[in-house]
């Protein structure tokens, strides 16, 4: 990993959500950029403009930004703020006087752009990429979505410069993960674009096998270039969580760590816990909810009401977001971790790797058949209810509570050993090797 090599391969990484963003997918982008930089690549990251993170998303994580390798260069291509602008003075005379005409004009222009809300960022990223490529050529372009405008930018850069590009499906674009159905109607331009960019990509990456298979079936011409790069946990972010001590009397602490959204079965979790707290041998327990409510801070108070978080039963506490420095303490204070996930067999949720790394009992609260089950199946301290019926959830929670009280050191050690194979860097290593081969193959031509 010598960064003084004269011929460092150069990669442009199109990652809209990159630190200081605190979006849920940001850890994968951070790890990918850091890993490539450590492996000797000259990495340039194109990320969201700062105003979008502060004014629209409403929060940033500066501590996370400090963990980005200093050798990584970041640029922030501009984004047309038409959909997000709220200051009437900034609308200008045309939009201020004729808001509907201005909206129609904006929508009409979108018909010619990449079919994504962030298309203007993709266009600016492609322009910035071309400018940087002219200064010193890139060897590879990697784009991570969402937003999928990053894929459009990668395609455009590949078309204009001949540089191979790789698309990383952190999320799915044309598949609605929560409904298990197409996200766009037939004939929508997104389908044409997805086919075009997958067939032109050097590789396409997915976070689990279910998603890879779905795409391989839809786009057989690109199937042999589709790979799975699992998510993982980040040892530099998650300090070692001390082993729990056996204690038969202390009230148990259940915890969920992550963002709460409307797609998760929160009601089943809360009702299940309430039963544990009232009806089982674990009375007096608490359920701590760590993390943000919703992805955008402006939506928090609306979501609180919709998710029923304003009237929670005894023992359930909303602890709010925890910084990188405090996450280890949050895990250390918890006896049982609740894996709350929305969606289907296509959803893995990156959080599960971090959960496993703690060696704590994990109780699942999600629909059966979730992709994360593949990983949890071999985790020795996994407890899954048969369904989302509150009685079943409560039974699984109670069993997990028993395991926490017992605190079997062998089981915890086995759990940690199993989790150790799921660090982010382990998942990225084969991918980085393939990228190196790809670049070497091109330069050897």
């Amino acid at each position, binding site marked *: 990993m010598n960064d003084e090599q004269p011929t460092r391969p150069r990669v442009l990484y199109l990652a809209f959500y990159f630190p200081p963003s605190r979006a849920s997918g940001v850890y994968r982008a951070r790890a990918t950029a850091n890993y490539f930089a450590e492996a000797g690549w000259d990495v340039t990251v194109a990320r969201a403009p700062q105003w979008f993170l502060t004014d629209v998303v*409403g929060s940033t994580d500066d501590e996370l930004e400090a963990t980005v390798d200093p050798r990584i260069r970041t640029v922030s291509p501009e984004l047309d703020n038409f959909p997000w*602008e*709220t*200051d*009437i*003075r900034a*609308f200008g005379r045309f*939009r*201020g*006087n*004729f*808001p*509907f005409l201005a*909206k129609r004009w904006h929508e009409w222009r979108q018909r010619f752009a990449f079919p994504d809300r962030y298309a203007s960022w993709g266009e600016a990223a492609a322009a910035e990429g071309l400018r940087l490529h002219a200064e010193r050529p890139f060897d590879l372009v990697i784009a991570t979505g969402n937003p999928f405008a990053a894929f459009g930018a990668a395609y455009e850069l590949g078309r204009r410069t001949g540089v191979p590009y790789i698309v990383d499906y952190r999320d799915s674009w044309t598949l609605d993960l929560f409904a298990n159905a197409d996200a766009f109607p037939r004939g929508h331009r997104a389908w044409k674009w997805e086919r075009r960019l997958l067939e032109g990509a050097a590789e396409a990456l997915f976070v689990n096998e279910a998603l890879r298979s779905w795409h391989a079936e839809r786009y057989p011409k690109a199937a042999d270039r589709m790979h799975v790069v699992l998510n993982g946990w980040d040892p530099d972010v998650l300090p070692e969580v001390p082993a729990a001590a056996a204690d038969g009397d202390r009230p148990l602490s259940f915890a969920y760590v992550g963002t709460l959204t409307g797609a998760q079965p929160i009601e089943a979790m809360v009702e299940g816990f309430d039963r544990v707290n009232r009806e089982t041998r674990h009375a007096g327990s608490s359920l701590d909810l760590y993390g943000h409510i919703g992805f955008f*801070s*402006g939506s*928090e*108070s*609306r979501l609180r*009401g919709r998710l029923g978080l304003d009237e929670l039963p005894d023992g359930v506490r909303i602890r709010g977001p925890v910084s990188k420095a405090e996450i280890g303490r949050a895990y250390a204070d918890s006896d049982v971790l609740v894996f709350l996930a929305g969606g289907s067999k296509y959803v893995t949720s990156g959080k599960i790797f971090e959960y496993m790394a703690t060696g704590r009992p994990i109780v699942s609260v999600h629909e059966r058949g979730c992709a994360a089950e593949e990983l949890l199946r071999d985790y020795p301290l996994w407890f899954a209810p048969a369904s989302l019926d509150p009685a079943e959830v409560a039974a699984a929670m109670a069993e997990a509570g028993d395991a926490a009280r017992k605190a079997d050191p062998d089981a915890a050690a086995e759990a940690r050993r199993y989790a150790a194979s799921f660090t982010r860097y382990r998942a990225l290593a084969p991918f980085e090797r393939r990228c190196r081969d790809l670049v070497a193959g091109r330069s050897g031509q």
Partner: protein
Amino acid sequence: MTTAPTAAPPERVVLLLYRTSGVTRANGYAEYVSERGVEVQAVVADGQGWRRAPRLHPSIDVYSLGRAENRLPLLWAYVALVERLPGGLLRRLQGRVPGAGSAARVHRKVAGKLRKHVFWRVYRPLRHQVLTPVAVRRLGRLDLAGAARVICMDEAAIPLGWAIAKRYPGLEVTRAADRRVYEDRPVAAPDGPPAAGSRRYATL
């Protein structure tokens, strides 16, 4: 001689509401901020198309543009000539002239279709433009200079918001009903919204 300190008036937010689609959002916002001691006023264009609108939250003081809208000459002429005059006449003839009852029913049906397919098709794209100068002329009653912010609750209210922004350079005029501004304030009225009937309703 010392004078007793006078309490500062509560912070005031003015909502601009042209379409019924913004009512739910306005109600949620008004409930949230009024619980935290913020006064909420709303300029409401409730003249046309508001008959089936959801009720506004009792904490909102309503300044209605309804009467001013209904008195717009062309609008008044349309309603009078196509709906009220023939409708009223046919209603009076019912029971006196044979066939007047069915004629009244036919008129109601035709007038309804005309309203839906002709009136609204022409008036909807113009409504916000027509109402903006009407509202601007009446803004004096609201003491906007003393308001904390003006919020356009729907897109149709933007031209009025733009006109206000031009006239009051220091006033925040926004599309965002951002509750975060008041989230640190303690809930001052935890006993629920004011009783129905306590709300002020005035015509602008």
